[in-house]
C-alpha cells in the first residue's frame, strides 16, 4: 500500500466517523423537522381534514385559490404585518437606547441587566397573564395609574376595538426587548474604544460619534437581529393567544392564531397548511435580509 492510498483510506475512515457522529442529530432533524415541513407543504395541495373517513385527495392549488378570496385571512395577514412591524421597530429603538446606556459606566447598570432577564426568562403564557393583570379594567395598575394622574377613567384596553392591537403590541415590545438589547450590547462591546476617543478628540459630538463610529460597527448585528425579530414576531402565537385569543372581533388575530384555529378547531388541515405556506413566503424575504446581515457580520469578524 502506498502512502497516498493509506492517507486516502484514513480520510475515508474519519469521514465514516463523522457520519457516525452526525447521525444522532441528523435523524431527528430529518424525521421531525425537515420531513414534516415538506409533508406540510404537500398537505397544502390536498383536502386533508380531521376525522374524515374518505381518503385525502390532491386538489392542486384549490386551497390557495380559496385563500386568495378569504378576506378574513387577509385581514389577519395585514394584522400580522402591522403587529410584526409595530413590535420590531420600537423594540429595536428601545433596545438600542438601553444597550447604549448599559455600555456606559452607570451605577444601576447591574440592576438593569438583572431586570432585563425577567421578560426573557418568563414563559410567554405568564407574560400574557401578567399583562392581563396590568390591563385589567378594574383591578389593573394601568387604569389606576391613569386615574391617579387624572388621565381619564381608564378603559378596557384588551377588548376595545381600537386599543386591543396597540395594547398587545406594547406587550410584544416589552417581551422581546432583552434579547435585542443583549445582541446590540454584544455588538457595542466589540467596538474599539480608541475610535470613539479619536473621534471625540476631533471634536465630534455625541450624534456624530454615533453615526460615524458606533452605528457602522453594530450595523450588521442590528440588521440581523431586526430581521430575526420580524420573523419571530410574525410567527408568534402564545402571547396574543393568552392576551386576547385574537379578539375583539379578530382585531388581534395574528396569522398563526388563524391557522391554529383553522387546523385544530375546524380540522381544516389542508387549508391551514396553505396558510402556513403563505407565511413562509413572507418570512423568506426577511430571512434573505438576515442572511445578508449575517454574511456581512462574518466579514467583519
Amino acid at each position: 500500500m502506498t502512502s497516498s492510498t493509506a492517507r486516502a483510506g484514513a480520510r475515508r475512515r474519519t469521514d465514516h466517523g463523522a457520519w457516525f457522529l452526525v447521525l444522532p442529530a441528523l435523524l431527528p432533524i430529518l424525521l421531525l423537522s425537515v420531513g414534516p415541513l415538506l409533508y406540510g407543504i404537500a398537505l397544502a395541495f390536498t383536502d386533508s381534514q380531521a376525522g374524515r373517513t374518505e381518503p385525502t385527495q390532491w386538489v392542486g392549488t384549490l386551497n390557495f385559490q380559496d385563500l386568495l378570496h378569504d378576506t378574513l385571512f387577509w385581514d389577519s395577514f395585514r394584522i400580522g404585518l402591522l403587529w410584526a412591524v409595530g413590535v420590531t421597530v420600537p423594540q429595536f429603538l428601545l433596545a438600542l437606547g438601553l444597550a447604549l446606556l448599559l455600555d456606559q459606566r452607570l451605577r444601576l447598570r447591574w440592576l438593569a441587566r438583572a431586570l432585563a432577564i425577567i421578560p426573557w426568562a418568563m414563559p410567554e403564557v405568564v407574560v400574557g397573564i401578567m399583562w392581563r393583570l396590568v390591563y385589567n379594567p378594574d383591578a389593573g395598575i394601568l387604569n389606576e395609574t391613569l386615574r391617579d394622574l387624572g388621565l381619564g377613567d381608564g378603559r378596557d384596553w384588551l377588548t376595545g376595538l381600537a386599543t386591543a392591537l396597540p395594547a398587545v403590541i406594547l406587550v410584544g415590545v416589552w417581551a422581546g426587548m432583552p434579547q435585542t438589547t443583549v445582541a446590540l450590547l454584544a455588538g457595542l462591546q466589540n467596538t474599539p474604544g480608541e475610535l470613539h476617543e479619536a473621534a471625540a478628540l476631533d471634536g465630534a459630538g455625541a450624534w456624530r460619534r454615533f453615526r460615524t463610529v458606533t452605528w457602522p460597527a453594530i450595523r450588521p448585528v442590528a440588521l440581523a437581529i431586526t430581521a430575526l425579530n420580524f420573523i419571530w414576531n410574525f410567527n408568534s402565537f402564545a402571547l396574543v393567544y393568552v392576551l386576547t385569543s385574537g379578539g375583539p372581533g379578530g382585531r388581534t388575530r395574528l396569522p398563526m392564531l388563524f391557522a391554529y384555529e383553522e387546523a385544530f378547531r375546524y380540522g381544516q388541515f389542508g387549508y391551514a397548511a396553505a396558510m402556513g405556506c403563505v407565511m413562509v413566503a413572507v418570512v423568506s424575504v426577511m430571512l434573505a435580509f438576515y442572511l445578508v446581515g449575517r454574511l456581512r457580520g462574518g466579514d467583519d469578524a
Partner: protein
Amino acid sequence: MTAPRTGRAGRAAQYAALLCYLVFLAFPFVWLVSIAFKPAAELGSLHPTWIPEDPTLANFRQAFDEQPLLRAAGNSLLAAASAALVAVVVATPMAYVMARRRSALTTAATGWVIVSQAFPFVLVIIPLFLVLKNLHLINTLAGLVAVYVTWSLPFALWMLVGYVRAVPRELEEAAAVDGAGRVRVLVSVTAPLLAPGLVATGLFAFITAWNEFFFALVLLKTAEKQTLPVVLTHFLGAEGAADLGPLAAAAFLATLPSLLVFAVIQKRITGGMLAGAVKN
C-alpha cells in the same frame, strides 16, 4: 469600551433614561407579585395599591386546589429535562463535526439551523400531529419530548459549535501526538473543557421546553398529561373571566424555575447564543 467623558447634564439625562427603563422592565412583574399576595377583599377594591396591605398565601393554596399544578409542574419537569438531556447528547457530536471541519454536510447543517428559525410552526405541527396520531403518541409526553428535542436542536447546535471552537485544536493535537487515540482525546481533553458549555446548553434547552406552549397545547389533550403553561391557561376560564389572585399566584410560581436557571446561565447564553445568532 472606554466611553469619552460625558458632561454632568449628560450624565443626569443618562440616569433619568436608565430609571425609565428600570421602571418599564420591572413594573409588570412587581404587579404580578403584588396581586399574588393580595387577599380577595383587596383585589375587589376599586383603587388597587402596589403593595398588599394584608399579604396572604391564600391565593397559592387556592391555585393548587383549583388546578392540578403539581402534576402539571411534574409533567413540565419530566418533558423539559428529558428533552434537554437528549438534545445535548444528540447535538454534541454533530456540533463537534460542524466546528472542526467544513464539508457540504456541515454547510447544509448550518443552513438548516438558520432556516429553521423561520418556520411558522403551524406548518410543522399539522403533519407532526398526523404522524404522532398514527403512532398513537398524541397526548403522551414521549411525543412532546420528541418534538422538543428536534425543536431545540438548532439553538443547541449553535451554542455548542461556539463552545467547541473555543477549545483550542492544539490541545487535542498535542494529546494525539502523545499517543492518545481519538476517543481518548475526546473523552479526556475535549469533554472536560466542553462541560460548562454542555451544561449551559442543556439548561437553555430545558428552559425553552419548560416555557413552551404551542406544541403542548396541540399535542396534549387531557389535564393529567398537560404541562404547566397549558394548565395556567385554564385559570383564564371562558370569556376572559379569571380569578385574579390564584391566577397570579400560579403564574408567579411557574416563572420561578426559569428565572433561577436563567440567572445562572445568563452570561453564557448571551455570549454563546446571541453571538452565534448574529455573527458567525
